[in-house]
């Protein structure tokens, strides 16, 4: 019996599953089951601490009459459409510089990666809040240069700028991936281009970019998804204001769920978000056929 168990445990299949077990358990407990529950809640009027009753599609129909929800979609899209391209361009630019033969590139690469390490953390958001505050660094510089200090967090037209800049500043992870991609491009291509008389700019646009396109696609999708989920900055810095100008999707879900206790409604919003993100990702994939070079 013992021997049998021993042999059973040592079978390749069993060992594999046992090693995967921690992940499988975690996946079920903190991903799959909560997701299934939230799908169920989205069809109920569940409020935290209260009894649950089934209300069908009411939450979903309510969504489309909810101005704050529509506004949340709008501002989230503005944020994604501005922050993602800027971040990618900036990341690519720095990666390009850092893959050239300059002394100490590894040092600089680590240095530029630091902002991404501290990620979407609360401390960074607080620092950012101070920098752009009424009497913060940016306004001091502005008035030194003879400009008027601006109310960055009070003006709904300006408020997106500090948030987007903060996201662009954290270009590190995109940069590292770009840098790895650039290094993969064979030197001989550039040498051949040089022989044919191409300048640096031409070889960047005609060799680097096309060769890098699969990596651009990867970065684009990852950054788009994470931008859709932006929460900390809006929560800490602006709390959605002024006038809901930075009331991002994730923040609105959080407020509905934990401030207003409307768990059912919040679940419905999350599922719509999942669908929207799915469609956007799909569109990016579809479009990639026309611009991603297949090796």
């Amino acid at each position, binding site marked *: 019996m013992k021997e049998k168990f*021993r042999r059973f*445990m*040592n079978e390749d299949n069993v*060992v594999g599953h*046992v*090693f995967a*077990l*921690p992940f499988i*358990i975690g996946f079920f407990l903190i991903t799959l089951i909560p997701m299934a529950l939230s799908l169920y809640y989205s069809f109920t009027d569940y409020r*935290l*601490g*209260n009894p649950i009753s089934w209300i069908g599609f009411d939450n979903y129909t309510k969504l489309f009459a909810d101005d*704050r929800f529509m506004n949340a979609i709008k501002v989230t899209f503005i944020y994604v459409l501005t922050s993602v391209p800027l971040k990618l361009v900036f990341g690519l630019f720095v990666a390009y510089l850092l893959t050239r033969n300059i002394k100490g590139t590894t040092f600089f690469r680590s240095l530029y990666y630091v902002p991404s390490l501290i990620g979407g953390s609360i401390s960074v958001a607080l620092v950012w809040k101070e920098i752009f505050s*009424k009497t913060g660094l940016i306004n001091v510089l502005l008035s030194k240069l003879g400009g008027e200090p601006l*109310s*960055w*967090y*009070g*003006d*709904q037209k300006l*408020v997106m700028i500090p948030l987007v800049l903060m996201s662009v500043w954290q270009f590190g992870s995109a940069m590292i991936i770009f840098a790895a991609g650039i290094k993969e491009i064979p030197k001989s291509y550039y040498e051949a281009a040089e022989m044919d008389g191409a300048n640096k700019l031409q070889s960047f646009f005609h060799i680097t970019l096309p060769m890098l396109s699969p990596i651009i696609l990867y970065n684009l999708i990852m950054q788009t998804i994470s931008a859709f989920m932006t929460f900390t900055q809006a929560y800490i810095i602006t709390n959605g*204001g*002024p*006038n*809901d100008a930075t009331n991002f999707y994730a923040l609105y879900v959080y*407020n509905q769920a*934990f*401030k*207003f*206790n*409307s*768990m059912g409604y919040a679940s419905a919003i999350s599922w719509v978000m999942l669908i929207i993100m799915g469609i956007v990702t799909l569109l990016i994939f579809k479009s990639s056929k026309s611009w991603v070079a297949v090796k």
Partner: protein
Amino acid sequence: MKNKKKLALVSMITATALSILSGCGSSGSNGGNEGSEANNSDQVHLKMAWWGSQARHDATVKVIELYEDQNPNVDIEYEFYDYDGYYTKLGTLAASESIWDIVQLDNQFPQYINQLEPLDEFVDNKIIDVSNTNEKYLSTTTYDNKLVGISNGVNSFALAYNKTLLDEAGIEEPTDDWTYEEFEKMNAEIKNKLDIYGVSRMDDFIHGAIMYVPQTEKGLNFYDKSNLSTTLGFDDPNILAPYFEMRKNMVDNGSYPELGGIDTNTDSAFQAIRDRKAAMVFIASNQLVELMKGMPEDQEIKLINPPRITKDGEAGIPLRSSQMLSISKNSKNKEEAAKFINFFQNDEEANKILAGERGVPIMENIREMLIKEGNPATLATFEYLEKVSELDNGEINVFDSSLNPEIQAQYNLIKEKVILGELTPNEGAQSIFDFATDILK
């Protein structure tokens, strides 16, 4: 080789199992407590939580330790949070019906009413002694004819103003019967003479809705008092418009911080008073103690009741429970929890430590003791509350609707739209009236 593999496998499984077990343990440590109770029948574990400032945390922890010293069989496990964090945590605990044995609640409590054990029974069998207080104070925590908690202290709304600043500018001090008109004028004057803000922060929902509606007419309330705040207590949306208009004017003439001007949290608003960047701030009266911390000594701060609509109109301010201690319906040790609450409310030594920071204590002997101690900020609050108890007409609703957080958030959003000129004050008033009516259905 094979043995090593097996050893690794076994330790992996054990580690996984342990981490899963410990994970469950920490999320439901109530379960753990039950076990130890069975082993040692006279050991009692209680869980308690509260929100508040650092001063409150330190004092409350000291009181808990004092109680544990006197009752070695009781072990109180405590947690403390800031206000928002507290309610977020409470919401999730309420969802799993496992809120702390002793909970601190303010007028948001109707949301959690299903989770609370009425205290009437403990008062009847004298576990909680209320002989030193009266009906008026107990009514601040009586909901649907049940005593849902014992108030830690009563407070009311007030404006704190810097008398020194007003004197310097030659501006007359406000009087008890001042009106919004005078208030607005005074703010403009402060702005013109001193080039600082008049007010650093007003709690607009409380001021413009909860207080303004009863000020309009005796008996009216933002939430209907007669049906436990399940509907609005007034019919005419235009009641809300004048406040919006005043707020817009104040931002336009620079006497109130523009959006993004001063952070809207109380810390920043209080700091603006200490830094003399504003002359007044809207507070709950027990916050005076906090406001005075770090206040330059040469500045004299006084409390005044908020302005009213006409000189002989309603004051609109009630005496209310700033916060109360309640017991969880699912607590295993309700009686022990009640004993602790009794200690917290009635013990003189404990209240010397707490020093009235949660509001004016409802027990007369404790009040007298604190008056003898004579902390100036506490005395000023007591004095102010004396005045409020005369102004309180007894018909003001001190409880919020269970949907209040959502309505309040919408109110503040609409206020911003009015200030930005996207809505007129009347449109804004109509809009919040419709919103609230709709979700309260």
